[in-house]
């Protein structure tokens, strides 16, 4: 019973996605996620790992954390300025330093955060180039 409802739902979702094919906003999101994956693989993966699970006790996971899903300004600043403070995610504390990635372009930072916010089980709005630029210029 449950599985047939699930199948129907999945079918409906597929329809929605295909009918959204020509939606420019959706296209932009999709492209940003694709570009963002490349940035992630080159710059974030080493520490946060292939599946966003992080490294126990060292580098925190990027799965449904309050930083990933929360205030975009805080999130953008983590990438622009790095992070070096005691943080707790899901009852674990993490001890390494996150360096700043200010050498990435505004577009790259927007893309990688959009990718992270839409991967590893996350679902959240896009981060735009303009939002990154605004914070960098501050």
């Amino acid at each position, binding site marked *: 019973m449950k599985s047939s409802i699930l199948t129907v739902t999945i079918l409906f979702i597929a329809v929605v996605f295909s009918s959204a094919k020509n939606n420019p906003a959706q296209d932009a999101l999709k492209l940003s996620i694709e570009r963002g994956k490349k940035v992630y693989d080159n710059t974030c993966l080493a520490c946060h790992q*292939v599946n966003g699970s992080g490294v126990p006790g060292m580098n925190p996971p990027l799965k449904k954390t309050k930083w990933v899903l929360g205030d975009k300004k805080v999130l953008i600043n983590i990438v622009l300025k790095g992070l070096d403070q005691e943080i707790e995610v899901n009852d674990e504390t993490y001890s390494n330093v996150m360096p700043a990635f200010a050498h990435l372009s505004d577009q790259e930072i927007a893309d990688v955060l959009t990718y992270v916010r839409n991967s590893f089980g996350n679902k959240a709005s896009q981060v735009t180039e303009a939002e990154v630029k605004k914070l960098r210029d501050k």
Partner: protein
Amino acid sequence: MKSVALKMMFLAVISLIFATAFANGPVKPKHPRADVTLKLPAGFTATPIAQDLGKNRHIAVAPNGDLYVKLEKLKNGKGILVLRESGGKAKVVNSFGDFAGTGIAIKNGYVYASNDQEVFRYKMNAKGEVEPNQKAEKIITGLIGRRQHEAKPIALDNAGNIYVTIGAPSNSCQTKDREKGSKGMDPCSLLDSAGGIWQFKADKLNQTYKDGARYATGIRNAMGIEWNDEVNDLYATQHGRDGLFQMFPELYNEEQGAELPAEEMMRVKKGSDFGWPYCYYDQMQNKKILAPEYGGDKMKQGRCEGVDTPVAAFPGHWAPNDLIFYTGSQFPEKYRNGAFVAFHGSWNRAPLKQKGYNVVFVPLQGGALNGKYEVFADGFIGGADIDSPDEAKTRPCGLAQAADGSLYISDSVTGTIWKVTYNK
């Protein structure tokens, strides 16, 4: 058009309901008891004698055979558990110490244990046990314990000294830690108070840096340290630096960044300098190489010529977390006076498969390498290859030799203790 929008909204609601339903499903225990079978050489068996203890770190055996387990996170307010075996199982018979940490050692009627800044000791009573309300004596305090490489492994010699690892709160002493393009500090100011092993008196209270001596330097993070009674010297296992490929892709490819630098097992003399952060050991070229932050090009030795070299070298990022020498008579002769090293397992090999997560035997004769190391215990991850450390079902972290000559191995994920025995 309007109907499409409506349809989408309807579906969004439905999928939201589903998503929430699934997200709120039954909560799985975070670290379920792992179904792990260790692989060992013929004749050896591993029995999980205790499980679900907590975040096990280093372990030590008392003269009466009790096993002391240091926890990285307090359990019921206690950081040290005492286990006693009977009938193939070990039960917690005592617990004490209101601090979490890594280091534990037993010597001359005292239990020594550390948190990330201090070392304490507890006197054992006439029965060789620590009384439940026994007061701790603080013997060392004020050590650097910033959040990176903060654990304080300890070892004691036979002349009244205690050795404490003070790991460097840094990867390679860059001006900005782990930031691509940031230069290495020269000289590295961290070496005055970290990145080495310090010597203190085992019986003096409240010692600080000024009461101790920097025994050896240029060691990034010696997680394993142990006194070798046979040759009367300190040995250590270092966690080598990270990020050669990530920070210098123009010099190192992905594979080289995963294999380099070697993890080192070192014989540590007073005044030894193993070269961190300026140098790292390349196990393919068999020499210390100048680190790229200090002008290295992956071949050049420069100032690293003449820097102390390891007794044994292992593949990069395996994370050697503990070291002991085997002095028992239960295992076959070849193990006598050789070393066991527990590798906690890598993360800085991604996106390649992670490695380590095993216990290795290092054959030694007179304290020098006598043949190639061999993997002794494997299978801790509980399955095929893993991409990230959180997929490992268990991870070996601490080692100790049991009173009957068996080997105890502690696991930091599920809180298991294995006892490895040999039956001819």
